[in-house]
């Protein structure tokens, strides 16, 4: 089982976020004045930014065109460097592979670096169900793990929480500490988490990380972090498992470099994240530290289907979060409203694929098609077009249904018949104008309740343009 989706109730979920004034204020501050400004600053320091985006798009397209060949080359290089490669068709298979490795290592606790793929396959629940304690070590992931929540953002999992909420969570969970301690400031919270997790790092039997990309040339996988948790996760325990999805392969070290010049800059405005780690196979015989066993798990989970579909371009995604940070919808709903692992525009393209369009049809609909996601995407994914492609599939399956569909069909009927359109709508507009009288807008109008719930509806001026023009008015 993966996480149970709640995408059908997207609008009800969103309502909760909209009513949460504390969350709204925090979103405004961290998104517009935070992520968006940071990206602009980062871009301004690299004049070649736009050219790098083109190159990155072309690189990822090249990889997708040659995907199987690059994966095979990667596999061979990992083996040469003393590692093992496991191929997982779906989430079940990935969980089973990882559990087996952990069990063979007699693991009691595993530390985890931040990994959206392990969220996608709901790994933690599976390990816990088999008596193995998974410990998230990225601060944000650690906090939401304690709260039994999904991440609300792919690079800032606890973006939705206030420091007071974090303090409360720590007091509830770190019960061995003095209950009256002062946790009012963020640095104190960090200090406490650092101390708690330091013990976990040192005691872990297996370390599990994701991989932001992996390199066919050398069999190397890459993680980028700011905290250093991914490195302690992979260098201390005797076993390291890295989980990634098949589309993240790149040909060479230089190609990885190209993407790394864009990734942090676009995500957080940093030149680079503090730690970019390139790991290749298992520890070498004369290395003083590092894992004796290295396992790379390559997850498909339907990506090979996406490759052959009208959603192929989403496989270029490098998970920077820029589309999320610039989406006006995410900016007011936050991440949990989306009801599954990946929020925002990228999530609205991926989630229907994983949970089905019947469950998730609300997500591709939840876009104004403002196009800002495509504008900021470092690999130029045409996100609005991909969302529209999902709307086509949804429409074929009867979404939207009911009155919304009927209304659309009536409109289409007029739009296809100009003579009828002119006659009928000029009568209709006349009626609407009479209802409005001298008022310039309606506070409420039958059939327009959605609109007038939050704003007035401007009334028609009177007469249609085509009629008035036809009568000689200029």
């Amino acid at each position, binding site marked *: 089982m993966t996480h149970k989706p709640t995408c059908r109730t997207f609008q009800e979920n969103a309502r909760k976020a909209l009513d949460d004034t504390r969350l709204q204020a925090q979103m405004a501050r961290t998104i517009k004045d935070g992520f968006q400004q940071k990206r602009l600053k980062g871009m301004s320091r*690299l*004049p*070649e930014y736009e050219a790098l985006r083109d*190159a990155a798009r072309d690189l990822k397209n*090249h990889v997708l065109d*040659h*995907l*199987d*060949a690059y994966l095979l080359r990667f596999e061979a290089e990992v083996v040469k*460097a003393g590692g093992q490669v496991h*191929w997982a*068709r779906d989430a079940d*298979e990935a969980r089973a592979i990882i559990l087996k490795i952990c069990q063979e290592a007699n693991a009691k606790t595993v530390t985890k670096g931040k990994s959206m793929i392990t969220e996608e396959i709901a790994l933690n629940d599976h390990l816990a169900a088999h008596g193995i304690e998974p410990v998230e070590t*990225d*601060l944000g992931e650690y906090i939401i793990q304690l709260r039994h929540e999904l991440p609300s953002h792919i690079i*800032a*999992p606890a973006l939705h*929480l*206030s*420091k007071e909420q974090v303090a409360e969570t720590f007091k509830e969970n770190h019960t061995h500490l003095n209950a009256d301690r002062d946790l009012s400031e*963020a640095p104190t*919270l*960090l200090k406490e988490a*650092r101390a708690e997790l*330091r013990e976990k790092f040192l005691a872990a039997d297996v370390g599990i990380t994701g991989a932001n990309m992996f390199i*066919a*040339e050398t*069999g*190397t996988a890459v993680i980028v972090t*700011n*905290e*250093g948790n991914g*490195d*302690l996760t992979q*260098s201390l325990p005797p076993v390291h498992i890295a989980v990634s999805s098949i589309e993240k392969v790149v040909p060479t*070290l*230089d*190609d990885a*470099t*190209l993407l790394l010049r864009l990734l942090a800059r676009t995500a*957080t405005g940093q*030149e680079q994240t*503090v*730690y*970019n*780690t390139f*790991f290749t*196979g*298992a520890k*070498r015989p*004369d*290395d*003083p*530290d*590092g894992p004796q066993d290295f396992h790379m798990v*390559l997850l498909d989970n339907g990506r*090979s*289907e996406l*490759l*052959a579909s009208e959603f192929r371009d989403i496989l270029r995604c490098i998970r920077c979060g820029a589309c999320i940070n610039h989406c006006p919808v995410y900016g007011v709903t936050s991440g949990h409203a989306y009801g599954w692992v990946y929020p925002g525009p990228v999530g609205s393209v991926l989630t229907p694929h994983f949970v089905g369009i019947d469950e998730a049809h609300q997500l591709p609909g939840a876009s104004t098609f403002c196009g800002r996601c495509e504008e900021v995407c470092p690999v130029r994914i045409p996100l609005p077009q991909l969302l529209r492609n999902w709307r086509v599939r949804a429409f074929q399956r009867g979404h939207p249904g009911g009155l919304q569909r009927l209304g659309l069909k009536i409109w289409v009927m007029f739009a296809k018949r100009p003579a009828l359109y002119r006659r009928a709508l000029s009568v209709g507009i006349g009626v609407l104008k009479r209802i409005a009288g001298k008022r310039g807008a309606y506070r409420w109008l039958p059939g327009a309740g959605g609109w007038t719930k939050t704003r007035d509806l401007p009334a028609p001026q009177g007469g249609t343009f085509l009629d008035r023009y036809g009568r000689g008015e200029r």
Partner: protein
Amino acid sequence: MNGRDMILSRLRTALDRVENYPANDFRWRASATEQRIHKAGPVLLPDRGRAEGLARIELFASEAKLAQAEVRRLAAPDDVPQVVADILKSTGWTHLKIAPDDRLQALDFTGTALDITCGSGAGGDHAGLSWAYGAVAETGTLVMRSGPASPTTLNFLPDWHFVVLSTEDIAANYEQVWARLREEAEPDTPVMPRTINWITGPSRTADIEQTLLLGAHGPRKLFILLIDAETI
């Protein structure tokens, strides 16, 4: 069919489609990938990655400072012990963990009050000292290469991390470091060590309300001890 074969077969079905021409033939794909890997090199080098000579060293230092690393210019390696001891004075820490690197082993700490041990990082280490494999001027990034002389854990476990860097090891860009690793690799052994760490500043997090805090899980402070290559 096992998972591997099934995934590869699905990929092949997707990629063998006519519209993927000319890569719709596996042999073509395999040979194109080998060629691309064989010709590995920079895709697009930004101007900032082209600094030379002294400018390269200055760029490294200024970018590293921008990432909140502290950069000290030392006249010679012999100055390392006293500089480290002086920096640590305010902390009250007396122990320094040193990487098993010959150049570090050769340093004379007898004049300092520091207690020196050598090896990998440990949970309680307050201060660690490593020697960098290289660095990248473009972003002020250190490049640490794991191996007998450079335990990876020492880059992460100490509270404060000191890294000696020779000016001649500062590359203008990342790609030069990859070229150096390829060049130095022994035949029939992997080009890459188990771990290459790019380190750009001290550990940090913004996971609580997007407030930037230094010292998440890795070192709270990063000191780069920059030494003119001619004195080494």
